[in-house]
């Protein structure tokens, strides 16, 4: 299995995928400089109940708070999820598109090993890149606002980032599962993007009445990355974080189902 990990990282280093992903991340960071204040949030009675995307929105630029710095650092997470979907899908389906998966199977490699080494590589690289992505925004925010965070605040931010990272892993598990079933980069990316963006609009419509909505709609919202992003990125975890393990385990189960399909499915 170690051989396969080595091969996967070699592929990453020597193909354009990783450079492209890093380039897109850099572009998002540059865009954040260009656009300045950005908000996209649901209606509420006050600042505390606002959910959504809030980058560089300081209540007072003279006295910045940790919450506003952290919120700005996490604001672009949803962009990274789209990057994550693209990365997972392209890196996974590439083996099918080039036919190289056929060689691996023909040389006696177990399909489960092929599948899980690729999936784990995608998940690990995505999580690390995401944490670097958030850290970069955090550093930029600190420099721009002049706010000096304490160690406990940094740990707090790391906690929120890891929570968002868990959502990223769950989302990528779904896209890897779809890759095994559909094997088409365009269709898988399309489905995943639709799932993410529809989550944003549905949640914004329902968020103030979540207790009264029907169970399927609740499932859709709690099983959607946007639900977590809009809350975590607003530094709200109470009443939200408890849904995350179910979402994560559900998506990891899909990843395992993908492995079982991979064993049985004919490779074309």
């Amino acid at each position, binding site marked *: 299995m170690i*051989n*396969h990990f*080595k*091969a996967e990282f*070699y*592929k990453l280093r*020597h*193909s*354009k995928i990783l450079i492209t992903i890093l380039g897109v991340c850099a572009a998002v960071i540059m865009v954040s400089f260009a656009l300045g204040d950005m908000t996209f949030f649901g209606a509420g009675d006050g600042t505390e109940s606002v959910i959504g995307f809030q980058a560089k929105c300081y209540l007072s630029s003279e006295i910045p708070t940790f919450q506003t710095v952290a919120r700005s650092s996490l604001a672009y997470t949803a962009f990274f999820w789209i990057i994550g979907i693209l990365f997972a899908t392209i890196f996974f389906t*590439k083996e099918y598109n*080039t*036919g*190289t998966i*056929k*060689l*691996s*199977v*023909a*040389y*006696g*490699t*177990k399909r489960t090993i092929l599948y899980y080494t690729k999936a784990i590589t995608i998940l690990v690289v995505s999580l690390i890149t995401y944490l670097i992505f958030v850290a970069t925004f955090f550093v930029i925010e600190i420099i721009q606002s002049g706010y000096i965070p304490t160690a406990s605040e940094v740990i707090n931010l790391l906690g929120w980032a890891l929570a968002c990272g868990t959502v990223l892993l769950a989302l990528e598990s779904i896209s890897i599962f779809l890759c095994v079933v559909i094997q088409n980069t365009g269709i898988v990316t399309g489905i995943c993007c639709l799932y993410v963006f529809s989550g944003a609009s549905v949640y914004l419509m329902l968020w103030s009445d979540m207790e009264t909505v029907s169970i399927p709609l609740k499932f859709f919202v709690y099983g959607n990355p946007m639900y977590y992003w809009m809350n975590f990125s607003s530094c709200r975890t109470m009443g939200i974080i408890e849904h995350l393990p179910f979402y994560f385990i559900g998506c990891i189960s899909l990843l395992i189902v993908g492995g079982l399909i991979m064993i049985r499915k*004919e*490779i*074309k």
Partner: protein
Amino acid sequence: MNVTVFEAINITKKYRNTLALNQVSMSVMQGDIYGFIGENGAGKTTMIRLLTGLAEPTTGKIALFGESNKKLAKQRERIGCIIESPSLYLDMTAYENLEVQRLQRGIPGKGCIDNALALVGLKDTGKKKAKDFSLGMRQRLALAIALLGNPEFLVLDEPINGLDPTGIIELRNLLKRLNKERGITILISSHILTELHQLANRYGILHEGKLLQEITATELDKRCKKHLLLQVNDVAAASVLLESKLNTSNFSVMPDKSIHLYDYVENAGKVSALLSANNITIYQLAQSGDSLETYYTNLIGGCQND
């Protein structure tokens, strides 16, 4: 001892309503260059896909180096293959493509990469990416990948596709050399029958999912050799006459009681006169002999004319 490298026993492969392979049994022996012949859709690639584990047979059994079922995957480590089209990472160089495969298969030492590239004539491609290679170069790179790790059995599905005439000659010589010097057993499928004729020592002829015939090159040459085809009422008497009066033993009596006479091909009149003078009735006397193409076409029931 003649060892079976690959054996298919009563293999049937069904895709929904299509029967891709129908009760096919075949075997490739150690040291063979086995030419797999068949038209498009005959089932050649399907058989290769079953051999390499990309698909499972509906019924029947596959064995590699005498092992089957759960031990089959382990035996696949001993093969090298090109399946359908060259499987390459197009945004990588030739060297990088081989390095990925080397890492994945746990082959120690990077020296094998240079050796494989030199063997197929791709040592000087430098930083050129595989996407900028011609189809012929891609085929060669795929062959280099197949040769990585010194396989005992090479499975090549249409490896001649895209090669120019020089490339075809080079590939033919390379495969012959690998077979002779390293003792690598080769299964090669191709539409280009003249090319297979110069390479293979055994043939399997597949048509509409059925294996019509397995034949050695010697036997095929015998069947294809230009000869006089004789059908007479008394085969034994005719044979004695050919030996005693025409001083030739260069003929074969076939299972259908016809005689294939390899001498006097251009002098059929003399043979006819001799047999008639000795009261042997001639039912048929004709020049015969096929190329591999004609033999194959006749075997599968001829070409369709417009």
